[in-house]
């Protein structure tokens, strides 16, 4: 399989790079200064693309690669892949579901605790020596607070299970009511926000869910409630979010994702009611290795004519 060209879109994981290098002709898209020349040169040997949450395979790229057979994403999110064109052209698509569910859910709870209990602030307070001048102020209790989850898929469900151990009543919004689920369903995100102390975004990003957390939703949350985003940056109207936070209309926000990563609105840097993370939801050694194994496993299966491990298209 060493002659099969696999185009990797950006640096994502050295273990993955090594494993792909061992098996295929790995082409690193980011190392070429002239991207169009690079594609011209290699277009007939590239049969697979490996993308991630930041760079995938859009219509332009797919059209430039006539021999493309499979896009294997180092992510569970598919918003950076033009699925429609892949379907039309019979190009297979795989992602990395399940292996990262726990880590993302763990981080969601970690973000809630860090935000409500001001853990980052507390850490700064001690490190700066301020504790010698006086105790830190009161923070907000997490146990027993109502948690509203947008999207009750694998990740949303895992978050709900964890929050239940903190005696949190769980509410959710999704396109349809889930039968056999003991949580309270709300038919709109605004209703969910009105009735939740903590709103968590855990749905996939699509045209329908872009800016699903808009000004109306933020107003419904209000100054005593908080927003947690472990989905995708475009789920939230970021400009409105910055205004809501700086004007004190929203109680707080903990964000692992942003509309234009790695750009983070600087107005947020000075706020003590925010937690800002650089898209580390699946960022553990164990999970990134498991994701890498899935990417490699899917490509190997495809090129040896076996069933794909985690196909989407």
């Amino acid at each position, binding site marked *: 399989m060493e002659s099969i060209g696999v185009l990797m879109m950006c640096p994502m*994981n050295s273990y993955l790079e090594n494993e792909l290098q061992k098996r295929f002709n790995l082409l690193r898209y980011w190392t070429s200064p002239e991207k169009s020349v690079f594609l011209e040169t290699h277009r007939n040997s590239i049969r697979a693309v490996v993308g991630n949450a930041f760079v995938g395979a859009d219509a332009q790229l797919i059209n430039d690669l006539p021999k493309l057979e499979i896009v294997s994403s180092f992510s569970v999110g598919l918003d950076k892949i033009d699925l429609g064109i892949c379907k039309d052209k019979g190009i297979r698509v795989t992602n990395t579901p399940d292996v990262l569910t726990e880590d993302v859910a763990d981080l969601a709870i970690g973000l809630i605790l860090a935000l409500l209990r001001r853990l980052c602030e507390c850490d700064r307070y001690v490190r700066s020596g301020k504790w010698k001048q006086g105790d830190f102020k009161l923070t907000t209790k997490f146990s027993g607070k109502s948690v509203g989850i947008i999207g009750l898929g694998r990740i949303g469900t895992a978050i709900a299970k964890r929050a239940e151990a903190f005696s949190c009543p769980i509410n959710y919004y999704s396109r349809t009511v889930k039968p056999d689920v003991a949580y309270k369903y709300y038919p709109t995100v605004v209703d969910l926000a009105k009735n939740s102390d903590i709103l968590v975004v855990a749905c996939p990003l699509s045209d329908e869910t872009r800016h699903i957390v808009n000004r109306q939703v933020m107003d419904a949350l209000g100054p005593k409630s908080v927003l947690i985003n472990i989905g995708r940056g475009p789920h939230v109207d970021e400009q409105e979010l910055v205004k809501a936070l700086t004007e004190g209309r929203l109680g707080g926000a903990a964000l692992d994702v942003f509309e234009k990563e790695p750009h983070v609105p600087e107005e947020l840097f000075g706020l003590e009611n925010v937690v800002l993370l650089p898209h580390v939801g699946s960022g*553990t050694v164990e999970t990134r290795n498991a994701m890498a194994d899935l990417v490699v496993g899917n490509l190997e299966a495809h090129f040896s004519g076996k069933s794909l491990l985690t196909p989407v298209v």
Partner: protein
Amino acid sequence: MEESSLLPPVVLVHRPPALDFIDEHLSRHSFTALYTHTSLEDSLQDFLSSHAASVRAVVSLGRLPIPAEFISNLPSLEIVVCASVGFDHVDLDECRRRGVVITNAGDAYGEDVADLAVGLLISVIRRIAAVDRYVRSGQWTRLWDYPLGFKLNRKKVGIVGLGSIGSLVAKRLEPFGCIISYNSRNPKPDVPYAYYSNILSLAADNDFLILCCSLTDETHHIVNREVMETLGKNGVIINIGRGGLIDEKEMVKCLVNGVIWGVGLDVFENEPEVPEELFGLENVVLSPHAAGMTAESLNNISEVAIANLKAFFADQPLMFTVQLD
């Protein structure tokens, strides 16, 4: 009973000046409160001698020490109501000698402490405080550039002290897929976690330790160098008990030299002093003894203290008395 029992009962409140959350509760429930911190001109000794001859009850807040001298200046003292779970700041020998009863806050703020323990654990292994600093400093310019954290699922977590707080911590960690075991003076019946009779074997078999026990002569420095070496280079320790549970000097050396991976600490041996070597470490999250500091917890703590004061003055049974033997 004496006629003085018809007057609002007098309570001596021993607290830091800034920690005033209980005052309003005391006045609302018709206690006459004397405050040791208002004795600015007199020394504490003089204050006690002139005001405190008939004081039967002391309310203790903020871990201000109550040593033998303090107790000996209160000849009528019968009860110390601690507005905290910890009571290691009270001279227990003197109380035992004088027959003074001690009550603590019981489970009044257990949930908040357990929440903080879990928050510290996730923050350490997922580097939350460190990456938040990284983003705020404007350093995030390349995607997925920050060192990875570690998975919590299927990790083995050893809880030192499975009391009310330890149990709340264990319950919270279960859905994260953690495998829970514990060390306690005695095994607890009907508990689904494996028991270890000593902390060394607990450390040998676990990835992370969470310290939830009280500080006594036996548990002082229960986490020593040997325990940390046994826990190992990927080990993490979370302490929401008392600073004295860990040999702090050794802990700093172990962190700096990579003998253990990281720590999350809400308590220190000599608060608010914190070893400065910790400030330069990324795998460390520090909290200023804030585990019980939410409005709900302070309210619960006050309610428990008031309930015990009322019960005491009415000769009714008390809650959460501490065993001194």
